[in-house]
């Protein structure tokens, strides 16, 4: 069984995934709970960009990769990318 990531890691991971376009930005007028399946999919896409095995789990390697030096543009040019382009 895969070890469950710590709550703090999940929080940091969600922030990171949102920042780089893997998750939609939170709506300012509503509290949001991440759907586990969507979070898992987002992690898998992130792992693909990072060249990691696509497990969908915030394992230590994935967390460490999130701290690696990188470009500050989002990886998924969805909403975040459009916002940047408008600016």
């Amino acid at each position: 069984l895969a070890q469950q990531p710590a709550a703090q890691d999940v929080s940091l991971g969600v922030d990171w995934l949102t920042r780089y376009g893997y998750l939609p930005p939170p709506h300012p007028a509503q509290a949001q709970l991440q759907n586990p399946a969507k979070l898992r999919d987002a992690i898998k896409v992130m792992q693909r960009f990072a060249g990691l095995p696509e497990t969908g789990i915030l394992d230590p390697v994935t967390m460490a990769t999130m701290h690696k030096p990188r470009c500050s543009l989002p990886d998924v040019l969805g909403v975040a990318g459009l916002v940047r382009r408008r600016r």
Partner: protein
Amino acid sequence: YALSSSVWKKRTLTWRVQSFPQSSALSQQTVRSLMHHALTAWGIESGLKFQEMDSQSPAEPDILIDFARAYHQDSYPFDGQGGTLAHAFFPGEHSISGDTHFDDEEIWTFGSKDGEGTDLFAVAVHEFGHALGLGHSSAPDSIMRPFYQGPVGHPTEYRLSQDDREGLQQLYGKAPQTPYDEPTRKPLAPPPLPPALPPDRPSLPVPDRCDGNFDAIANIRGETFFFKGPWFWRLQPSGQLVSPRPARLHRFWEGLPAQVKVIQAAYARHRDGRILLFSGSEFWVFQDRRLEGAARPLAELGLPPGEKVDAVFSWPLNGKTYLVQGQRYWRYDEAAARPDPGYPRDLSLWEGAPHTPDDVTVSNTGDTYFFKGVYYWRFPKGSVKAEPDSPKPMGPQWLDCPAPSADPHSPRPPKAT
């Protein structure tokens, strides 16, 4: 590959480096050359032309390149060393479109083989991909992968991966294939790239700044430079170290002969702003970071043959330059280009100064500081008498180091004369 869906409508794009890295060992010419080669990597595959604009030109280039720190007016602040390295804006009509920003707090390198620092060419190729309209890619060989992968080879030999070529050619088509399609005018040659420098390590262990015992300490244009062997640290006027890791002497001081391993004294000449570095019986004159002329003998400053200089400083009170050797010093008149008569004299004139100091410098506030070992002695502005509480440990005040412990095995402050 991913496309941003924005594209330049013209085939010739202009660019300019607006600001250069402040603390990098890379010269401005090297930075410009790396940018040229990074753009050329994209141009070769697409037929796009890139034209560097003169820094004096009033027109705004399509791609404006900046090295910036923290918040830099574009809503995407940098985060210091590590983390985010750079970003670029996609093509478009807005003035910021195409602009490319590098985090100035990274240690930017070129040709480093020891894994230290971040290869500027690799990051520049990546960012210019964005500036041309490419998003990030997950392809293993792509330069557009979002995470920094390390150096990509020599700039003149670098070619994009198939994934990057295909992404670019989706936006701009392929480069001309026949000689009839080639432009008839060659673009201006870029500034030449210097040879890749040898790695910092493993042959040279990095010294610990907290150990003190510097070879030379100098106030150069408001920043304090601490020299030790082939390394130096820089302390900004704000009191912050440019980096806790020392910079290599020869990477910064362009033209300093390789055989010079130690700088024994240094100062910024008051009359013309030139920087003089002393080692053995010779000294070298620099304008900014560039060497002017050959090594000069100390005899040119009127010192007897065979002398060397342990410390040198320019005293703002009288504009004279003080050259210290051991426990003696000469007072040099820059205007007359000779030492004042009656010298050398005994350094004990400076009441409370340490015997044979490592170096002496004058701070931005006009106070004179003598350094020896891990201690400093402060002489208030215009005074030749040390403050009564001297010496004090250098570490906490100057180098972001703890004060030396009271451990009996630790070195004791040298006795003042």
